[in-house]
């Protein structure tokens, strides 16, 4: 049940609680503490620009975690993730414009809308697998975006729906640092929910379905029910991510949810490493920061201003290239690289793990 991280000798687990615990060794506890302190101190050192980047990473992380649950663990491919995020954002936009609904109402409704859509997205999964499922999710994405666009045009919001920041009494959430902590909390909460889900019966059922669906059915796992639950939970989370996105940006518009966004989320879980929550986080970090990295590199070249026009094309091309490189050369993604590094340091001076089994 526990993760197969190589550990130094002398570590024993003597109770079930210890076995199940998320943080197990003293080293892990200290590492986590340092990390939390770093995260808490960051907003006081960083400029507004880097705060915005961090917030974007947190938002992407929520979406990536939900997709990782669906595709990485339950094995159901979804190319329509951007549609679910759009659905959450539009729910917030519509409720705010039509009914002036406050955020503590719109967020749960967005989750509910996401869950319902997840049910609809998930129904084809009962009959179809693999590519056919991916295609049906793609079709549903187009339909969601179409409906959103129709709403925008028919209700007169040509340039997008403006949304006010969420308010509690007189305090409106506008400050960049405040948003940082809110989104950090959201990402952490999502991570905890995902980790706990995966440790539970549902998570085990998903892993079984991904490994071999027919055998899972034969073992008595209700495959149809668990597949649908994967879609419902993942979609609800993605919708909440979309709702947060709407509040953070302050507006909703259908152009922000292009097919490329779906591709980016898929890239996050591939580059991060399928079947690992850490992979989702690393992937979200990488894919969000990637365009800024490319821009920084390009701007250091001589005669930078004349390249400014080609930035988008270079961005696109290098993104495709990086995705291809990961798929061909490192299918286990960033997590694979990370684990190999971990193995190296823990096992040194030995090269190989003593017991067969676990990850490559």
């Amino acid at each position: 049940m526990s993760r197969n991280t190589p550990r130094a000798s002398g570590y024993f687990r003597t109770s079930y609680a210890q076995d199940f615990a998320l943080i197990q060794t003293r080293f892990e506890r200290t590492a986590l503490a340092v990390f939390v302190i770093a995260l808490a101190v960051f907003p006081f050192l960083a400029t507004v620009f880097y705060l915005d980047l961090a917030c974007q990473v947190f938002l992407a992380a929520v979406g990536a975690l939900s997709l990782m649950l669906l595709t990485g663990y339950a094995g159901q491919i979804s190319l329509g993730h951007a549609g679910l995020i759009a659905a959450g954002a539009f729910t917030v936009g519509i409720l705010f414009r039509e009914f002036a609904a406050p955020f503590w109402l719109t967020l749960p409704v967005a989750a509910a809308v996401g869950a319902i859509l997840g049910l609809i997205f998930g129904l084809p999964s009962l009959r179809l697998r693999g590519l056919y499922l991916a295609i049906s999710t793609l079709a549903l994405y187009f339909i969601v975006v179409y409906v959103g666009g129709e709403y925008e045009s028919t209700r007169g919001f040509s340039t997008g729906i403006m949304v006010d920041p969420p308010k509690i009494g007189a305090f409106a959430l506008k400050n960049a640092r405040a948003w940082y902590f809110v989104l950090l909390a959201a990402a952490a909460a999502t991570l905890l929910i995902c980790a706990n889900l995966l440790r539970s019966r549902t998570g085990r059922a998903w892993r079984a379905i991904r490994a071999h669906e027919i055998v899972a059915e034969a073992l008595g796992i209700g495959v149809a029910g668990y597949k649908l639950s994967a879609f419902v939970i993942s979609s609800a989370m993605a919708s909440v991510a979309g709702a947060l996105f709407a509040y953070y940006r302050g507006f909703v518009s259908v152009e922000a949810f292009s097919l490329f966004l779906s591709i980016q989320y898929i890239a996050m879980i591939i580059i991060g490493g399928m079947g690992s929550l850490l992979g989702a986080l690393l992937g979200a970090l990488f894919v969000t920061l990637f365009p800024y990295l490319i821009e920084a590199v390009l701007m250091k070249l001589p005669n930078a201003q004349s390249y400014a026009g080609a930035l988008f094309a270079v961005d696109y091309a290098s993104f495709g290239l990086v995705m291809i490189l990961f798929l061909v050369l490192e299918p286990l993604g960033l997590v694979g690289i990370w684990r190999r590094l971990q193995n190296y340091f823990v096992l040194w001076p030995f090269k190989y793990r003593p017991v067969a089994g676990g990850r490559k």
Partner: protein
Amino acid sequence: MQLIVNIVVLASIYALIACGYVLIYRVSRVLNLAHGELMMLGGYLLVMTASMFSGNPLAAIAAAVVLSLVVGVLVYVLLMRKMAGEMVLAAVLTTVALGVLLRGLMLLIWSAQQQYPAEALALSNPALILPGGGRISTFAAAIVFANAFAYGALFLFLQFGRWGVRMRAAGQNPLFAAQRGINLHAVYALAWGLSTLTGSIAGMLIALDSGLTSSMSVIGLKAFPVALVGGLDSLLGALLGAGIVAAAEILSIQYIDPLLSDVVPFLVLIVALVVRPWGLFGTREELDRV
């Protein structure tokens, strides 16, 4: 009458693009989601050869056609060969990434400006008047004929040609085909080359007919439901699927709501997936194989 002409033209466009999807899927079970970008690349290759052979339209077109065949084979040899034998999903995602890469490269090389290869080649596009009162532009008629020719040639090739038979064998059971001495890599490369060829011809003809924009690859995505509705491994299905989707799209423009034309292919797709996922003429086992 004009309505029928419009449906035939649109169906030909979709069918010509869809046969590329079907070819690769049938032979190697890979879904090539970069087909839209490869189709657009054909248009840009024509722009390039038009500037090289500016006096000679036939030479330019011939050169572009040959180049697109080479590009298709190269894509397989350099990239997709490494994914042969891997999980199907990984191969499909590789094609998605390839599409993104190609789009970026095309933007980098040719910028987002609209191109008019017909102007560059000094070819004109007059409207032909058909018996019955309908009108069709010259290049649209060319698309219809090119589509018919392509399908006819592919049928004959797959049925009777030596390599065609090998392709069908590799598609039915790669393991046995390889054991019988069929060079799978060569067969796959040929499939990719032919698929890119037909896609590029579609792209070139569309570019000649109405100009080349940098977002033409989306048309490739709209043609994908066509392949699915007919059955991803059936050429005849692709032809029929094209007819159905094109008719649905044009009739909805004419009688229901022009805006739906964007979504109609995907609505048809969903209906097909719910009712008959393996398509009109596809093999049913496909569902479990993936």
